[in-house]
């Protein structure tokens, strides 16, 4: 194998592909980066048994071939090479990297022990990279982290025609985000459960391209893989089996009260008051005639209260939340004004964002949060 490639192109590609290499490789070969040169393109791939990453760049290929080299080392080297074309060639079991007057010789790893990379499913549609990354970040925050309940560690991606719905829950909150996309087939319908952490990393790493295309392999039957592609970079990841509980009925549609609060002062106040809330104790919110009173702590311990302007339509209500879950939601709505809708103090409340005090609530993102039941 022998090819020439621009230094910046190589460094960027290697750095991206090497990101998905496992920090603690389960088998030595997985610390390797698979370089494949063929007809004008060079592809680099990494795999950690769960996520595969593959990037294609243009290269001046003289001899075709495949080689496996230590990804970490190649990333370090390509980052610090001088800005000249890089020539990579194999020589028996070694690889020579020549760039300007510097020259490196690397060991290769056995290619035949490298596991087969999962095949990229066919593209199902595309969406702007930043929209996708933002939507994923909003939803993944609510995903569970308990490995013994694997289903809840995933983000559910539901595709129905030109609408994509992302949903995640850890039983105490439920985040749902809808956005539009361009499907390949207009009447497409599919569901996939993707590990939240992986999805978050992937979405972030693909923001450089204009659009991200999503590819879903046949859903059900356990053959599930989901692929993401953007700007020559593609990753696949394994899906979780199972499905989230049916959530549409969990979201209340009729409310007894709707409160509208400016987000920034609300967040500050919750953070302050929460200082005296011990682990697992709630922050209490009392809405009375356009004044919101936040309280935390019990009479035996430290206590805090704070008053805040709020607009309330409907009945007065007193309700308590886990401050972390509330803050997560407030940061995820990403709007200057927050709208909280209540039914009763024992039923979940719905959090959504408003662009301004008097504007309509943005229904694309909804965050359902369970209250903490107060005794007495």
């Amino acid at each position, binding site marked *: 194998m022998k090819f020439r490639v621009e230094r910046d192109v190589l460094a960027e590609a290697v750095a991206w592909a090497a990101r998905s290499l496992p*920090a*603690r*490789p*389960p*088998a*030595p*070969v*997985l*610390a*390797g980066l698979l370089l494949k040169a063929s007809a004008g393109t060079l592809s680099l791939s990494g*795999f950690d*048994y*769960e996520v*595969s990453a593959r990037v294609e760049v243009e290269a001046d290929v003289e001899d075709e071939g495949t080689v496996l*080299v*230590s*990804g*970490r*080392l*190649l990333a*370090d080297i390509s980052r610090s090479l001088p800005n000249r074309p890089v020539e990579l060639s194999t020589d028996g079991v070694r690889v020579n990297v020549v760039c300007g007057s510097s020259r490196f*010789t*690397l*060991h290769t*790893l056995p290619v*035949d*022990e*490298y*596991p*087969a990379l*999962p*095949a990229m499913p066919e593209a199902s549609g595309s969406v702007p990279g930043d929209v996708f990354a933002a939507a994923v970040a909003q939803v993944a925050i609510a995903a569970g982290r308990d*490995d*013994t309940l*694997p*289903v809840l*560690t995933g983000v559910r991606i539901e595709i129905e025609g030109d609408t994509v719905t992302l949903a995640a829950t850890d039983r105490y909150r439920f985040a749902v985000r809808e956005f539009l996309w361009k499907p390949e087939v207009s009447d497409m319908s599919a569901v996939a459960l993707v*590990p939240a952490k992986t999805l978050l990393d992937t979405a972030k790493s693909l923001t450089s391209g204009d659009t991200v295309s999503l590819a879903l*392999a046949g859903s059900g*039957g*356990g*053959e*599930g*893989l989901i692929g993401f592609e953007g700007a020559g970079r593609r990753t*696949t990841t*394994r*899906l*979780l*089996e*199972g499905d989230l509980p049916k959530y549409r009925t969990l979201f209340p549609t009729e409310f007894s009260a709707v409160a509208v609060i400016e987000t920034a002062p609300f967040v500050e106040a919750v953070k302050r008051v929460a200082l005296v809330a011990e682990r697992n104790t709630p922050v209490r919110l009392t809405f009375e005639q356009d004044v919101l009173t936040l309280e935390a702590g019990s009479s035996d311990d430290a206590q805090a209260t704070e008053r805040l302007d709020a607009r309330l339509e409907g009945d007065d209500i007193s309700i308590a939340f886990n401050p972390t879950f509330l803050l997560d939601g407030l940061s995820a709505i990403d709007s200057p004004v927050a709208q909280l809708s209540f039914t009763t103090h024992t039923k979940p409340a719905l959090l959504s964002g408003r662009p301004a005090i008097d504007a309509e609530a943005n229904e694309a993102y909804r965050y359902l949060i369970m209250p903490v039941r107060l005794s007495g």
Partner: protein
Amino acid sequence: MTVWDDVVGQQRVVDQLSAAALAAGALITADPAEARPDSSAMTHAWLFTGPPGSGRATAARAFAAALQCVSPDRALGAAPGCGFCEGCHTTLVGTHADVEVVRTDLLTIGVKDTRDLVRRSSLTPAGGRWQVIVLEDADRLTEGAGNVLLKAVEEPAPRTVWLLCAPSLEDVLPTIRSRCRALVLRTPPAEAIADTLVRRDGVDPQMAAFAARAAHGHIGRARRLATDEGARTRREEVLRIPQMVSDIGGCLKAAQQLVDSAVEDARQVAEGTDAKETEELRAALGASGAGSRLPRGTAGVLKDLQDRQKRRATRTQRDTLDRALIDLAGFYRDVLAVQVGAATELCNAELRPTIDRFAASSTPEHTLRRIEAVLDCRRALDRNVAPLLALEAMTVSLRAA
């Protein structure tokens, strides 16, 4: 060559597993529109049991390979498990994406390790076939860890298969046991082992026969005896112990000798594999040649490996002592066989004159008591008694009996 070649003397089990792999293949290629093919031969959780050395883990790995076999011949009706295709090969070398082999160098597998397994078991396979989780030491699961696994083993994702290995059914929690299909491996007959040694390792037939007999059906041990001069010498030393224990001084010396040879054995095993493993990992991380600097941030990975190797050394030492004790028990078994005139083959036929002498100079009661002393010592070691003390106690009671 097929993946089953390494599974020695277990034809019945191999037949059952081949049938299962075939049914599993049919499930994958089946057209979803048509009726599901008969899949009763395949199930989602298997428990491999059998005496140490019978090849439980080997059988499990072979089955995993057969499940991942992608040989083009399969479309023509060939049995799964060709041993050459990418699926088989990467499974056998341990790098297949969908085969997770869990083994431990520690004494137990705890809750923390199993949590991650539960998560993995609910993922879909990367290669579109089966996700196989091989738990080589299911007997070492703590009760808590077993309970974490219960749900995952009972109802795994549709394409996840659990392969658990344990010496006997009783070593696994009853709740786990009842969720698995049991497969019992027998002690492979000496002829089958000898045959494998000749065929695969090119061992001289006479040596192979000796090693197979001396290893009491332990395949790995037999290979080691047949190919490693040092292992044979150490075994001879162990078998000389019955003649050394005529006085207290001899007893203590014999015990010391046993411990020394176990340490030596562990060191030799370590020398062979540790250096190779370390070198492979260093190369993968990008350090070329011994002594060269590792890339930044990778020292931790190497340290993990070193810790693991250290733990393995401790376990090798224990295993070696245990094996020595089994050899010793085998000797007394032969003595007993001669004393009661049983018409079985002796494990140590080459020591016939010594055995006859022992048989003539003691009674079966004595011999039984001696065997009991050896087994007591194994139990003591199992409970973490200092090896030298336990062995001294044993050699002294060998003399007293």
